């Protein structure tokens, strides 16, 4: 015996499935290979065309061939069938090909489930507010598709969408309860595939001429900071990233070396603040110089950089305290000082010659620093995002020929001059400044605030920050990059624009994003513990949590049941129409006697009010037919009532 034939799909349901497939796969076009998007679009168009013309779906061998070809393409593209990106690509491929196989209700079901699954995969790439909204719309379409599948052709488009909206609205309280109370587990549960975290822009472990200038073109937010109390002045906001001690003549690199913890000598107040770091796939945490209190799971390198034990792969909050006025490492190790005087032997000869001249005139390190800074403050140096290309000896070219550069050129040239003069010096990468958002009080530090500066070690003062950029472009420190860069250079519009209304709008949008990040996306196991302790369950174990969860879900379910099943008592529709007729008759001074039936009223009026009698008789007859007749014909009654004088 054959199994019973699966329920066939009615023709009108297919456009819904096409819409579901389109809505759930479209956002992936942004990051997936072009050929896959093209194949998906092709399958969708083919399926829609076959549907439009009423043609048969392709045969099984065609689909099998398409699956094999698609998988082969994915293997070639991603070198694997597994992993995050390849897995998502497979799902998209299956969704596209399933459209060519929509025969039964079960196929349609699989398509919608695949759609729900695809919705989840979008969050690998973005969890922003727009993504959330788009996915809500997709969810509405997919749910309406399910309703349409089971309602059949008697389910027209608009009421179906409205019904889906109602269901989602009723699902929202469940989501809220589960979101807050479902026991949160800190992931990952198992090893993440290699491509789990896509590369994002940010500081790297090396700085070459042009690398910061490139980064500055991005208005992406690097991190946000909330200060407890008054923040330090803007020109004191140096957020320290990697410290680069190894120089090959053109590029500065980080070369971690073992050493003792840095010794910090506070000279002023400490500032407490919390940073919310966007994932940058590096370990450094970008604390304000010099961090005195670190979050758990972080430590200070010998070069004063706060780093976490794991690369930052999620948006994370870190609480710090920093002493902005400080000295550190007055007793620096010999080996470190030696390392920070090294220069590659044969490159940048003119710079080294200049430094040797200075050294011959005055060997005092502090005055050497002053001389170098005085060189930059001269009128021939310019601060620009578009420096000319530099050759084999970039520092020489910059100092003596081009004289135009960005912060990394100045920091690098300064450090080279110092090393050539025998003063230990190094380059520090990080961010400088930031912008407070008046809407929520958070400071926003963007990639465009990326900066590089230098550090020299001086007897009795330890490592001293020297920022040669301040000499060339003092505005950089006081008001930020937009003020320091000449007009017309390629800065992101977001950073450049100064129109007040636009700025206000941007502040609002970023504050909304920040709230979203802090309260929605940032709801992690710690936040859940905080929330539960505020509920009066400070040490909730999973059992009490499950009990609470079950109780809350039960309450929501009861509310939904009540809202769904409760019906306001309603009169019979025929009776309501009859009452409407009586209201009209009352205006004509006609009222039924107590206990008078419609037909009796009509008979009485036939004698008393010949003007009204025929219309009333028609209404009475239609009412009796609607109320007591076999077919319940309301339409006749409705017209009869409407025709009452």
């Amino acid at each position, binding site marked *: 015996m054959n199994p019973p034939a699966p329920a066939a799909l009615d023709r009108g349901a297919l456009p819904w499935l096409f819409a579901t497939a389109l809505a759930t796969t479209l956002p992936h076009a942004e990051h997936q290979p072009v050929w896959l998007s093209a194949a998906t679009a092709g399958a969708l168009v083919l399926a829609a065309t076959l549907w439009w013309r009423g043609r048969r779906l392709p045969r099984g061998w065609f689909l099998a061939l398409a699956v094999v070809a698609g998988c082969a393409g994915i293997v070639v593209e991603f070198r694997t069938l597994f992993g995050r990106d390849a897995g998502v690509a497979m799902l998209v491929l299956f969704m596209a090909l399933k459209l060519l196989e929509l025969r039964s209700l*079960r196929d349609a*079901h*699989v398509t919608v*489930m695949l759609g*729900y*699954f695809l*919705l*989840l995969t979008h*969050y*690998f790439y973005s*969890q922003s507010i727009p*993504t*959330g909204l788009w*996915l809500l719309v997709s*969810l509405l379409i997919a*749910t309406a598709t*399910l*309703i349409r*599948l*089971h*309602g*059949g052709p*008697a*389910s027209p488009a608009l009421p179906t969408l409205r019904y889906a909206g109602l*269901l*989602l609205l*009723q*699902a*929202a*309280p*469940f*989501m809220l309860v*589960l*979101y807050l109370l*479902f026991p*949160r*587990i*800190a*992931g*990952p*549960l*198992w090893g*993440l595939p290699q491509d*789990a975290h896509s590369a994002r822009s940010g500081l790297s472990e090396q700085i070459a001429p042009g690398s910061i200038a490139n980064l500055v073109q991005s208005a992406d937010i690097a991190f946000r900071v909330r200060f407890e109390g008054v923040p330090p002045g803007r020109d004191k906001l140096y957020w320290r990233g990697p410290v680069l001690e190894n120089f090959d003549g053109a590029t500065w690199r980080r070369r971690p070396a073992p050493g003792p913890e840095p010794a910090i000598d506070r000279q002023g107040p400490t500032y407490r603040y919390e940073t919310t770091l966007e994932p940058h796939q590096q370990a450094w945490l970008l604390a304000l110089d010099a961090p005195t209190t670190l979050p758990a799971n972080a430590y200070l390198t010998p070069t004063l950089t706060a780093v976490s034990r794991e690369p930052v792969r*999620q948006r994370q909050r870190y609480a710090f305290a920093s002493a902005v006025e400080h000295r550190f490492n007055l007793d620096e190790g010999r080996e470190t000082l030696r390392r920070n005087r090294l220069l590659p032997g044969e490159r940048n000869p003119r710079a080294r010659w200049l430094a040797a001249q200075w050294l011959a005139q005055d060997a005092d390190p502090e005055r050497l620093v002053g001389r170098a800074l005085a060189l930059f403050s001269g009128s021939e140096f310019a601060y620009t995002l578009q420096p000319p290309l530099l050759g084999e000896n970039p520092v020489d070219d910059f100092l003596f020929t081009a004289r135009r550069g960005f912060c990394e050129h100045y920091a690098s040239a300064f450090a080279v001059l110092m090393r050539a003069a025998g003063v230990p010096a190094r380059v520090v990468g990080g961010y400088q400044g930031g912008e407070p958002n008046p809407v929520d009080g958070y400071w926003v530090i963007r990639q465009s605030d990326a900066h590089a500066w230098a550090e020299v070690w001086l007897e009795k003062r330890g490592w001293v920050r020297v920022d040669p950029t301040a000499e060339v472009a003092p505005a950089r420190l006081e008001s930020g990059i937009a003020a320091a860069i000449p007009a017309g250079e390629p800065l992101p519009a977001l950073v450049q624009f100064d129109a007040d209304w636009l700025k206000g709008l941007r502040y609002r949008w970023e504050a909304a994003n920040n709230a979203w990040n802090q309260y*929605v*996306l*940032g*709801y992690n196991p710690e936040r859940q513990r905080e929330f539960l302790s505020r509920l009066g369950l400070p040490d909730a174990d999973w059992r009490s949590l499950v009990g609470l969860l079950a109780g809350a*879900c039960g309450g*929501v*379910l009861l509310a*939904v*049941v009540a809202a*769904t*099943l409760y*019906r306001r008592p*309603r009169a019979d*529709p025929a009776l309501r129409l009859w009452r409407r007729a009586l209201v009209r008759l009352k205006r004509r001074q006609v009222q039924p006697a107590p206990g008078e039936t419609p037909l009796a009223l009509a008979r009485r009026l036939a004698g008393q009010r010949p003007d009204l009698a025929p219309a009333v008789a028609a209404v009475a007859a239609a009412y009796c037919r609607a109320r007591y007749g076999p*077919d319940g014909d309301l339409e006749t009654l409705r017209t009869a009532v409407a025709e009452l004088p």
Partner: protein
Amino acid sequence: MTVLPAAFKDWLFRWQKSDGSGPVVLTQRRIFILPSRAGLLFATALAVMLLGAINYTLALGHALVFLLAGLGMAGMVHTFRNLAGLCIAPGRPEAVFAGETAHFPLHLVNDRPTPRLGLEFQAGDGALVACDVAADGRREIALPVPAARRGWLELPRVRLSTRYPLGLFVAWSYPRPALRCLVYPRPGEFPLPPALPAAASGERQGDAGQEDFAGFRPHQPADSPRHVAWKAVARDPAGGPLLVKQFAGGAASELWLDRDLLPAGIDPESGLSILTGWVLAAEAAGLAYGLRLAGSELAPASGEGHRRRCLEALALAAAP
């Protein structure tokens, strides 16, 4: 101890005690609900998605999974609502012949301001009947049940189920409308017995009522071969339906259909079949006919009412 389960059973199934002859309103006690196969698939998908969301620490992934779980719950309530409060009133089934399909009519009344879509009725092992009832609407449906044997055919257990709106749950109920349909015996083919002269007009014998040709009508299984218009058949090269000559003036003679006229040795049920065929043929030929069965007798007459009475008598005749 044995009393308690019985009492519990009584309580559980107390609604079944209604006799079903009047309208039945589906209440929560009459409705059962369980996840469908699609619902199980959905739950599995949600579990996998939750694992993914935890593993990749996707806050919105958590939110999506929880929203979908809520959607499932809301869908359950709405699937239940699709049946709850539906009023089912039994109709009046038309009698059929054995071998045909009986249709049991049911009136569905929806007094809710939302439509009830995707309802599926099934009587016994019969075919599924899908239907919708509009908002504040009424609807009549007919449940087909094959009628195998003559006599009363009780409406088998009716299963009303729905998966609307999301298909993740299936809600069902067993409304018990008290409906039965009379099944006449299957008409058998056998030549009509000769008619006897009516008591009042004893002049003509034999083929009274077969003299004045009145026209043709399509052949029925019970028609006598003598009446088939063989010439007309021969003239029709396309092989159309057999035509039977009809004659006027037959009312003058009367015909007794008696099981004694049946050939000897025929089994009783086949005999009732043949008698049924005779009733149909005699009525079609416009003859006055009477029916004699064991213990009952219907005087010769003709017309729709008489035909019905004869068929009812045959349907309900005690097994000889």
